[in-house]
């Protein structure tokens, strides 16, 4: 009689043994396994809900892949892509460039946990997580390859991560901190507990809903499929956090969670906030970035913290306030510095502005005058009048431009370390830096590299240094300055 699954599963997953040729500490050095270092007995109860076997994993993944490929095949014949909104195409290009190879990097984090995770059930789960991340790299690369015939810049799905493009430097800096240069324990807390349990819901589920609204069903299917993997391997975070807290590691855990909440938020406001509220066609917007953040991310994160007896991050009030402003300021930066991107950026139309005002009641008062001024410059001076004269100041922690929250709301600040002054976009970034200055001080942002002679200072040469080697590759105004609503107003006038 065949054994039932539950009769043999623990035997297959819980395969820890006692070492005779090396000590446990040598087998799992603290520097890479993580702190607090605990004997295996402290990890022996490690468990998660999915308890997948390799066989089940392969069967399920095959079904998921077949499902994505079926939609891809059907829709390629129906020529749906040709009819997608041009703004939405920028979103897909932005997402795939920023995410695809980053997922491959996340494979390193999973593999670190697969080797140095302190219980075999954890290591088994992380092995499957590593396979997930390879899949999450390959799917957007494949779909982007399909889109090359519509827009050659879809090759940035592969290229972006290998360039000095400023947004990608910011993404790589975050991912290095989160998992590439983190111990197995820290990776579990930062990547799986904060980033994957919370934020990827936004990037994959909420974005999938918007893809549905935009009729991009291939993208929708791919995002939703990826999120089912994320939901599974994100389960690693909870039991690791439980073990760390049981061993008295609350202070360390709280720091990592606070740090990664803020850092993840910074990247998501730049990538996802702007994509949701500006690149998604108005009719496809299921909710605003702020609404998604509040309903999908914050509530769950707060519950998770309460479950473990942890505190809200000290900067919570600032974070909540930022939801009304930060990504809107950031979008102005993306538009103005569009040549430094591999996507085209839209000017918000009257329809966009009405929607933004409805969702963010201070939007028109705060950001309307600046967009008005840019529109006026288009009228009077054309494209050259709307491009920047100089480089923006970048944060020495998150690597992103230091933006005002709004008029008279300046959060930028500086701090000195070993005789050098560092710039930060906000107090939380400064706090993170000074909690681990030896970890962050040696990294030069793009502006530091200009002054160190490691990057050209001429604006066009900087673009080439970033990998944007030709004018065709650089981002433009989505309408090339021929904004339909301005045309109408001129004709009417």
């Amino acid at each position: 009689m065949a054994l039932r699954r539950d009769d043999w599963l623990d035997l297959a997953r819980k395969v820890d043994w006692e070492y005779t040729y090396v000590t446990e500490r040598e087998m799992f050095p603290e520097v890479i396994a993580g702190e607090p270092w605990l004997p295996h007995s402290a990890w022996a109860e490690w468990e998660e809900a999915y308890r997948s076997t390799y066989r089940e994993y392969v069967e399920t993944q095959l079904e998921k892949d077949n499902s994505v490929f079926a939609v891809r095949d059907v829709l390629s014949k129906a020529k749906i892509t040709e009819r997608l909104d041009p703004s939405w195409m920028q979103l897909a290009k932005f997402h795939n460039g920023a995410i695809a190879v980053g997922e491959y990097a996340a494979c390193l984090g999973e593999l670190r946990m697969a080797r140095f995770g302190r219980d075999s059930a954890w290591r088994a789960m992380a092995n499957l997580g590593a396979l997930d991340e390879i899949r999450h790299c390959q799917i957007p690369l494949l779909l982007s390859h399909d889109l090359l015939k519509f827009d050659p810049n879809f090759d940035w799905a592969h290229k972006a991560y290998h360039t000095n493009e400023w947004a990608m430097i910011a993404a790589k800096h975050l991912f290095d901190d989160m998992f590439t240069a983190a111990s197995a324990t820290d990776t579990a807390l930062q990547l799986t507990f904060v980033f994957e349990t919370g934020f990827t819901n936004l990037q994959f589920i909420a974005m999938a809903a918007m893809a549905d609204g935009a009729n991009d069903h291939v993208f929708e299917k791919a995002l939703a499929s990826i999120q089912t993997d994320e939901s599974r391997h994100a389960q690693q975070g909870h039991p690791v956090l439980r073990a760390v807290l049981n061993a008295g590691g609350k202070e360390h855990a709280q720091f990592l969670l606070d740090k990664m909440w803020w850092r993840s938020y910074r990247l998501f406001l730049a990538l996802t906030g702007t994509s949701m509220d500006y690149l998604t066609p108005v009719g496809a917007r299921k909710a605003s970035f702020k609404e998604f953040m509040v309903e999908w991310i914050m509530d769950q994160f707060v519950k998770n913290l309460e479950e473990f007896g942890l505190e809200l991050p000290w900067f919570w009030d600032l974070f909540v306030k930022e939801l009304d402003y930060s990504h809107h300021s950031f979008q102005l930066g993306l538009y103005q510095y569009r040549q430094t991107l591999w996507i085209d950026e839209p000017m918000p139309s009257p329809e966009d502005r009405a929607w933004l005002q409805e969702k963010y009641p201070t939007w028109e008062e705060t950001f309307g005058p600046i967009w008005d001024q840019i529109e006026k410059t288009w009228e009077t001076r054309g494209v050259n009048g709307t491009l920047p004269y100089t480089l923006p100041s970048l944060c020495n922690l998150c690597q992103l431009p230091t933006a005002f929250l709004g008029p008279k709301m300046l959060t930028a600040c500086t701090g000195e370390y070993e005789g050098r002054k560092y710039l930060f976009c906000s107090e939380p970034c400064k706090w993170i830096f000074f909690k681990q200055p030896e970890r962050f001080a040696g990294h030069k942002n793009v502006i530091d590299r200009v002054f160190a002679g490691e990057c050209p200072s001429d604006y066009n040469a900087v673009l080439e240094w970033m990998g944007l080697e030709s004018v065709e590759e650089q981002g433009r105004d989505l309408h090339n300055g021929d904004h339909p609503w301005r045309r109408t107003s001129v004709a009417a006038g």
Partner: protein
Amino acid sequence: MFIHLHGYFEGDFLGLVCIGMGDTKVGDVATQLSEWVLDLRVAPLPGATGLEARNETGELLDLNATLDEAGLQAGDILRVKQVA
């Protein structure tokens, strides 16, 4: 020696890198910043008579002082606004 400052112009949304020498006047850097910003993103204040510059802590700076005299060093924040 070059001194790079991070200029923030009230009404704008972004910090910009400004460059001067130790003997460059604070007012010249403030003017440069205002030209970059007013030209592009911020409407000139009706009746504006000039500019006001402050350091990170909010201390009002003499526009005729040099960067050295104003105590501004590489990497410092310079806040500028229009005044009527």
